[in-house]
């Protein structure tokens, strides 16, 4: 108890300094949690587009980004005819811009595509899709920011399109996107006869392995991956995840420097007190444990506050219309665990030098210290 009291007393002695350190860790944790959760949400959204009513995605082997993938129509037709395949939907991804919006995602899809079939149609009739080449269906948010209504003509990229429907989906990318008939999209993006990916629904999930082998044998330039495999291996996702952790890591590093500063000041201002503990028989291990204990308390309070602040921030962001569908407030336990561990490690690393300094204090000299 006295040991804990020493730790708490030392932190309470310089409340403002301790508070600033806790706040530093809290901001870092909140930033890391928010960035990682938003990016993971975005990755989940993108994966969701691909896994909409499908289990496997086929795309061009060794492309760095699906926007650069070209899957020939012949492959779509052949794969659709394989007995193990329930349906194969080609999707062409494209990016366009409008006057006020630099990035609008376009989906070139067929009328049979699950995105068209399963979406909630707020306006328009899904049977009208792909009847005319200049018809488009807008996601709810896209309609909002393009200020478009049913039957309006909207400029998108270098063309003007007729809005024949507005759909609502749970997916942020789709909700902010434009759905075009596949042929129109191929012409618009100068990718005649190709799609970016084929989303595959198998008759039985047990056929996944044999399907992938068959793709490899029949189309050496293509690769088939199950949804989970794709999410794990897609280089863009890896880059996004690495970026998120790196940004959060930098934040924690700054928080760690704050802890180090606090602990150094804390040790420097009580050299005499540490000497007294030494005279009372405290070992190096006990002195170090006290310093690390203080740092751990700061880190844990910071982590707890940061998790709370991060969660609140995500809840607020979820309410922002522009971010609708992109922010998932569900914080994965593994993310939470990693963030807490990183905060603790940061605290310990920050206390390393102060602890070594404290262990090196010689009582006889320190007791003369004023």
């Amino acid at each position, binding site marked *: *108890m*006295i*040991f804990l*009291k*020493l730790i708490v*007393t030392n932190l*309470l*002695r310089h409340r403002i300094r301790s508070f600033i350190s806790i706040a530093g860790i809290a901001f870092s944790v909140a930033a890391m949690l928010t960035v990682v959760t938003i990016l993971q949400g975005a990755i989940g959204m993108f994966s969701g587009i691909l896994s909409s009513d499908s289990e496997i995605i086929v795309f061009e082997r060794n492309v760095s980004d699906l926007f650069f993938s070209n899957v020939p129509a012949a492959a779509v037709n052949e794969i659709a005819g394989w007995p193990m395949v329930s349906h194969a939907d080609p999707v062409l991804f494209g990016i366009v811009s409008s006057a006020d919006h630099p990035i609008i995602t376009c989906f070139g899809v067929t009328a049979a595509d699950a995105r068209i079939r399963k979406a909630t149609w707020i306006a328009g009739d899904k049977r009208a899709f792909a009847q005319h080449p200049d018809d488009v269906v807008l996601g709810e948010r896209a309609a909002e920011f393009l200020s478009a209504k049913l039957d309006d003509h909207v400029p998108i990229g270098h063309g003007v399109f007729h809005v024949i429907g507005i759909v609502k989906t749970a997916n942020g990318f789709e909700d902010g996107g434009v759905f075009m008939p596949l042929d129109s999209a191929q012409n618009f993006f100068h990718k005649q006869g190709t799609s970016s990916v084929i989303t595959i629904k198998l008759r039985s999930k047990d056929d996944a392995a044999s399907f992938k082998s068959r793709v490899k044998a029949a189309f050496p330039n293509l690769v088939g991956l199950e949804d989970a495999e794709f999410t794990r291996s897609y280089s863009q996702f890896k880059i996004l995840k690495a970026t998120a952790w790196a940004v959060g890591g930098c934040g924690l590093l700054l928080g760690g420097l704050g802890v180090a500063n606090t602990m150094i000041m804390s040790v420097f201002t009580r050299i*005499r*007190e540490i000497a*007294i*503990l*030494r*005279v*009372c*028989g*405290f*070992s190096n291990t*006990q002195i170090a444990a006290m310093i690390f204990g203080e740092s751990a308390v700061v880190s844990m309070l910071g982590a707890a506050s940061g998790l709370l602040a991060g969660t609140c921030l995500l809840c607020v962001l979820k309410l922002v219309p522009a971010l609708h569908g992109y922010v998932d407030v569900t914080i994965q336990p593994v993310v939470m665990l990693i963030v807490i561990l990183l905060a603790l490690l940061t605290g310990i690393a920050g206390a390393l030098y102060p602890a070594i300094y404290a262990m090196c204090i*010689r*009582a*006889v000299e320190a*007791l003369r210290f004023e």
Partner: protein
Amino acid sequence: MSLAKEETSGQSRILLRAEDVWKSYDEGAIAVLRGVNLEAAEGETVALCGPSGCGKSTLLHLFGALDAPDSGRVTVNGVEVNRRRNLLRLLRHEVGIVFQLHNLIPDLTLQENCLIPTVAAGIDHHTALARLHQLAERTGLANRLGHRIQKLSGGERQRTALCRALMNKPKILLADEPTGSLDERSGGAVFELLLDLVATEGVTLLMATHDRSLARQCDRQLEMHDGRLHEPASA
């Protein structure tokens, strides 16, 4: 010169022993101890007198393992203190130290300050509390246990420091000007208490002091001049 306890019976056990101890600072520029020899037996009270800077505190620090001699041997209860592995055991169980300044932790209560040595030594809380209550009763601090150090008078602080030094039942008490920061009346009361506790606990006392009237109440008085120990002419 060897200032050993005159053993009246062969059963007196030597607890403190310095043999030809030399100590200097600033790479030998300031010689503080010059071949000091000293012995103190179990239960004996020894006063070290002498002017400031003569080496009294340094000698106490060597016995308390707070510093190491340049040469010579310092043994406490038969164990050489220069060896690092002995230091913790020495500070936790063999030696209690009282300084001129109380050296208590101001943000803790009297009770918490006194329990620090028991935490260091891993003594269980109930045993430690029982010991504290016993010492607090004897030092008149029983009703002050929950008070912070800032709320205590100078005499009470020094009595607290005395309690803390005796918490782990050490065999030896090293006191460096224990009454030096107190007025005559408080100092006298604290010293009386110190002698009483030392006698009842059977502790060996080695005390550095300027106050010859206090020194005279000890079993032996030693004069220290220029880093050397002498028997006082009047002793």
